[in-house]
């Protein structure tokens, strides 16, 4: 048992840290902080940051070099993430593509698809949003009704081969207001059983027939959108994985979202460290008041650390050739609750100050973090669904 990094890994860490120190947009350098990525202006600023990272080959460190990465291992990825959060670098506007879609493209994509989509994703040239949920398919994702119909040779379009026509509606599409592409599931065989007959499509948001209705979140900004499809034509090459294989393909992606790759522990350990500093400040001003939240502060910090160690534990198993499996649901329960505990405790420490917006009328960092954390137990499979998964697939309890 060993929790130390190799000297090579420590050199990698130093390199990441140096680069970030020199490049992260910051007030002192006059380059930051970037405007909210849920505004048109902020979205483009974040896209530009992705490009800066990409040019230095930091945007997708774990990808193969041919697609813009460094072929870094899982541990190096974790190190990169630790440094990224420590440096308080911008939220990754490309994360839906990089963390949710890319693993699926690597697993199911054709060589042409990889070449076509991955570098543009890594550079921020093409930002992706997700098209999972529908108004009547939330927790019950398999209830998807958006349709894909096969036509052979689109009329008058002079195209070759099969084309699909998409109709329907997707919702809660994160980054949907400004994204360039959307990935998601459509029902290609209306007669097949619920989980079958779905196909995974990649669709440009500027396709004729695509309409975007931005949805404002709790903070009033448009972090997600509804996306409507009306006779949207898509060539067969934009199917990811086999026709009718969509559920299997999507679950691989959902596994990434719920599991290890998206949820780097650094995010929580950094937030926890800031919580301790907030506690220190508040306790200096009013020890009695702060002290009433001391237990919650410690609890949140400990849980963040537990998430970090559990990640190392899992990473070791993966590196030793094991898999992740339904334990991913335990991770999702744990990080979402830990995040909410950290943020709620911070607001409790702030007391009557917590409700106040900043001079820009935006929620300041802790309030913003709290609002963001509230979504944690809901998205990527509600925590109720995750508890079912844990009970049924880890503990072996019978389905209802």
């Amino acid at each position: 048992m060993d929790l130390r990094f190799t000297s090579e890994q420590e050199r990698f860490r130093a390199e990441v840290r140096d680069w970030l120190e020199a490049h992260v947009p910051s007030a002192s350098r006059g380059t930051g902080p970037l405007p909210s990525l849920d505004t048109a202006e902020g979205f483009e600023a974040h896209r530009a940051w992705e490009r800066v990272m990409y040019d230095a080959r930091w945007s997708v460190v774990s990808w193969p070099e041919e697609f813009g990465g460094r072929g870094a291992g899982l541990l190096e990825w974790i190190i990169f993430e630790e440094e990224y959060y420590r440096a308080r670098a911008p939220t990754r506007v490309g994360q839906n593509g990089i963390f949710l879609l890319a693993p699926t493209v690597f697993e199911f994509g054709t060589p042409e698809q990889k070449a076509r989509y991955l570098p543009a994703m890594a550079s921020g040239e093409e930002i992706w949003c997700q098209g999972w949920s529908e108004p009547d398919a939330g927790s019950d994702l398999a209830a998807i009704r958006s349709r894909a119909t096969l036509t052979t040779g689109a009329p008058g379009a002079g195209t070759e081969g099969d084309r699909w026509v998409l109709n329907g509606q997707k919702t809660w599409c994160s980054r949907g207001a400004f994204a360039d592409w959307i990935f998601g599931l459509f029902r290609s065989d209306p007669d097949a059983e619920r989980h079958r007959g779905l196909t995974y499509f990649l669709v440009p948001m500027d396709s004729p027939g695509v309409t975007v209705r931005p949805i404002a979140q709790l903070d009033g900004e448009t972090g997600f959108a509804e996306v409507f499809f009306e006779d949207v034509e898509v060539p067969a090459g934009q199917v990811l994985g086999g026709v009718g294989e969509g559920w299997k393909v999507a679950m691989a992606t959902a596994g990434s979202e719920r599991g290890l790759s998206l949820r780097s522990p650094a995010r929580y350990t950094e937030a926890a460290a800031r919580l301790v500093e907030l506690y220190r400040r508040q306790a200096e001003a009013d020890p009695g008041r702060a002290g009433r939240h001391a237990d919650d502060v410690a609890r949140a910090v400990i849980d963040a650390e537990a998430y970090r160690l559990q990640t190392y534990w899992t990473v070791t198993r993966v590196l030793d050739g094991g898999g992740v499996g339904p334990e991913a649901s335990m991770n999702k329960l744990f990080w979402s609750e830990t995040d909410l505990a950290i943020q709620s405790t911070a607001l409790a420490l702030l007391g009557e100050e917590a409700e106040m917006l900043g001079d820009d009328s935006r929620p300041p960092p802790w309030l913003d973090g709290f609002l963001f954390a509230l979504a944690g137990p809901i998205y990527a499979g509600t925590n109720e669904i995750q508890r079912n998964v844990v009970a049924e697939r880890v503990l072996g309890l019978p389905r209802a």
Partner: protein
Amino acid sequence: MHFAFDEDQLEFRAQLRALAEKQCTPADIREAWASPLGWSRPRWAALAEMGVVGITVSEEFGGMGLGLVDAVLLLEEAGRAGLPEPLVETIALGVPVLADAPGQQGSVLRSRWLSAVADGGVRIAVGMSSMPAVPGAEGAELLLLERDGELHAVPAAAVALTPRPALDGSRRLAQVDWEPSPSTLVVSGFEAEEVLAALGDRAAMGVGAVLVGVADRLVAMAAQYAKDRSQFGKPIGSFQAVKHHLADALVRVEFARPMVYRAALSLSEGDRDASLHASMAKAMASDAATLAARTALQVHGAIGYTWEHDLHLWMKRAWALAAAWGDAATHRARVLEILLAKRP
């Protein structure tokens, strides 16, 4: 022993509920949030007309001459309705301070302000020096402000406000710059300590009442949604996880409610345990509302996370008021302190 409201009290609440159903729809609340003031002068006038605003003003000055037990039910209803108007400060804080203000200055204050309050022409904001900003300062004609343990009554013309917007669009906080002077002084010294303590207790009770109403509404909204929304071929309210979440939240709301009513009773009777009761009430109400908000959001899922759904109008109120005038932990600490100070 008759721990219940009388017919008149229930009837008054019914009237307020009827008014709110007409004049305080979610669309009205959104309009208030988007307005410069954060609330509506016509609605304030309607509330004054009904007697709500002047409920605690004595009949001598044109009010209803009623007490906190009468007011508590209306404040709860205000929370349930999501009324944007800052009623607590005027009804439960400001008016009783003026009513009890000592000496010649007290008489002057009463004649100058109380009739105008009852008429709906004057709103009172209250600010303690410990507060980062004063809620409802904009739009208030009179500010009761504490500094260095003294309480001052300062007309709006004598203060400078720097708006500090809050997450709840009808809570318009402001930093208040002002100068205490002998002419603004209401009470100082030991007497001020008592007045300020009573003010804090009434605030805990009053805000607690609003919170119980807010929590009640949140649970009701979530229960309704759970009946309407189907997943996996049945209403999500038929899933045990949803049922149990909502049952737990409801229980906390239902048990907070009598605590708030009792606090109002003890405060109006000058019970020697009134502070204890007020803190117990606020602790329970804050927690009940926080839990109700958390539960309601989780039951709604993503739709509850949107600006266009009405849930957030109540959630944000719940979060703000749970922290206002002492959060649950603060009041629990005070409860234990009071209990330990009693010899067994």
